[in-house]
């Protein structure tokens, strides 16, 4: 017992000494859960290359990330939705947004006797989730899927019950394509869903869809790809039906990047471009514009630079789409704003 204690104390002491001597920079961060797999990969690889920089990331959710950053308990935050003007105004210090990776939502469904990929028009998705389209053989659906024998059964809608960036992207898309959705429901990590069952997490939604006959739900592309879940195509702004994959999501970002605002707070749902997948989004790191501690400032800038160049190579292994070139260049320039 005493020996164990002694060892523990020695280890703690050694850790403290090492930390003090080599000028280790310890960065604390918190926020979004969706990019957590790629973030933890990045932080790990970066720490191996730069042993004196250690980044602790807590995936507590976007809301928590924003709040902790504003309270000053973390060095930087992460969020799936950009901070609102109101939130930025409330903040005591200036916060910069840096897009890191791209994510997308896909519609997954379970209809008896239908095995192929369905095409979903924008109107159809909005109608289904508003509860105005209630049958699978609604003209809006049959018209886009010639040759598919859609049954006359009731549609069971499934959405996320937990607050999530996935819901933010989905509702952002629906707000853009449907005036009624925008006025009645709006966009956010949690909304007042007009219809449907709530499942917790991607696994909850996909589980409910798989189990419930005639159900439709939305899940993250990463989750669908990793678990081999089939999903449908969605009509984009150019009127084409596009299947979500790494390329079509990057195309959406490239389409939107042409008029990227200087603060990077941009929504790329329903992006222009014939090959763009319409339900995609950036996810952001939230960095304070002014960092007092020079060591921390250098560490954060160094990491961001690496993440935008070297780090992007790790994306596709984890089925996250790479940032388009134009966005990377713009972000590299914006690094100098951190002072």
């Amino acid at each position: 017992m005493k020996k164990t204690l002694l060892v523990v104390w020695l280890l703690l002491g050694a850790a403290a000494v090492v930390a003090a001597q080599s000028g280790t920079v310890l960065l604390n961060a918190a926020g979004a859960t969706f990019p957590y797999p790629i973030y933890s990969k990045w932080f790990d690889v970066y720490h191996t290359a730069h042993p004196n920089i250690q980044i602790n990331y807590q995936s507590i959710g976007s809301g928590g990330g924003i709040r902790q950053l504003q309270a000053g308990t973390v060095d930087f935050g992460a969020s799936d939705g950009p901070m609102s003007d109101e939130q930025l105004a409330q903040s005591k210090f200036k916060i910069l947004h840096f897009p890191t990776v791209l994510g997308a939502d896909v519609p997954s469904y379970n209809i008896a006797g239908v095995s192929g990929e369905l095409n979903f028009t924008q109107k159809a998705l909005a109608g289904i989730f508003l509860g105005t389209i209630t049958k699978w053989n609604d003209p809006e659906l049959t018209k886009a899927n010639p040759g598919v024998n859609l049954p006359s059964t009731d549609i069971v809608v499934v959405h996320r019950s937990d607050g999530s960036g996935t819901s933010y992207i989905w509702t952002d898309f629906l707000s853009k394509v449907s005036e009624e959705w925008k006025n009645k429901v709006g966009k956010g990590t949690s909304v007042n869903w007009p219809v449907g069952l709530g499942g917790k997490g991607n696994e909850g939604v996909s589980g409910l869809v798989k189990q419930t006959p005639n159900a439709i739900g939305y899940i993250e592309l990463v989750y669908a790809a990793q678990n081999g879940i089939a999903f449908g195509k969605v009509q984009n702004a150019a009127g084409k039906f596009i299947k979500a994959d790494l390329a079509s999501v990057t195309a959406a970002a490239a389409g939107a990047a042409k008029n990227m605002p200087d603060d990077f707070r941009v929504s790329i749902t329903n992006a222009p471009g014939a090959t763009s997948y319409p339900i995609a989004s950036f996810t952001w790191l939230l960095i304070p514009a002014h960092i007092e501690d020079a060591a921390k400032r250098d560490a954060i800038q160094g990491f961001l630079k690496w993440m935008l160049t070297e780090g992007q190579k790790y994306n596709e292994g984890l089925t996250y789409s790479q940032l388009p070139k134009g966005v990377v260049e713009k972000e590299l320039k914006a690094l100098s704003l951190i002072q």
Partner: protein
Amino acid sequence: MSATATTVAHEVPPTGLRAFVRKLRTGDEIAHLITLVFAAGILLVTSLLVFELWRTSYLSRAKFGWMFFWTRTWDPIFDNFGAAPFIYGTLVTSAVALVIAVPLGLASAIFLSELAPRKVSDIISFLIDLLAAVPSVIYGLLGIFIVVPLMRTILGPAIKSVLGFTPLFSGPNYGVGFLTAGIVLAIMVVPFIISVSREVLLTVPREQREAALALGATRWESTWQVVVPWARTGIMGSIFLALARALGETMAVTMVIGNDPKITASLFAPGYTIASVIANEFTEATGDLYLSALIELGLVLFLMTFILNGLARILIVATERGGGRPA
């Protein structure tokens, strides 16, 4: 305060510090002090909890007032929050759970304490205690993979064919909903009822049973009319322990209830409970009012538990008066 303190004070005339130290040596004072501090600690934690909930829910209380209890909307985008569907869902699922779990638990406890051979009883109750220690997420998974499909394909249609004419069992059956959540909760709380009730029934003195049997009562009459009334307080206690667990259960319920904040008479309909919505939405709640409303929901749950426990006490006192166990 305690009788011991007074007697000690009589033996030793109080002469400042030395007297105090001497008092400490007897041990009683120390024990008294330590237990007092610990007991006060519990009280302190509870009051801090309520105070913190009260303080941080200020925004929501100021904006919605009493309407918070009646409003049926929960809209984080347009900042309109009401607790009604969540209160309803919490009460309904807990009620369903108790309706199923109480007869089941009580019958099992009676069998284990009165009828089963002691050895069998001990083995089974050991297994039941193990059940009580299973994490709730396991029960949630059990719910998703077994109870939900069963409800959709067999149980639900069967209930519907018999009782479908009542509003309680009308409407579409998705497999998830109030009834499924209630069933999963019942499975979770039944071990508490069995375990505690059995212990209480075993403490009933042998003489009570023997007296009843001597008067010509059958085994069942002696059990139901003498043993169970004697143990009534303890059995009630086990039921309220089960209720407390059902009210506060989060993970298992959120996995099978459907998470739709609506008030529907049908038990097949999806619903929502207070604990579930807090667990679901707290992490991503960005607005101040939104967060405050979620915290006020926590306060409401605390209040509900408080009121139900109060009612339980009244019920116990009332039934005591009706006879049964002598004071």
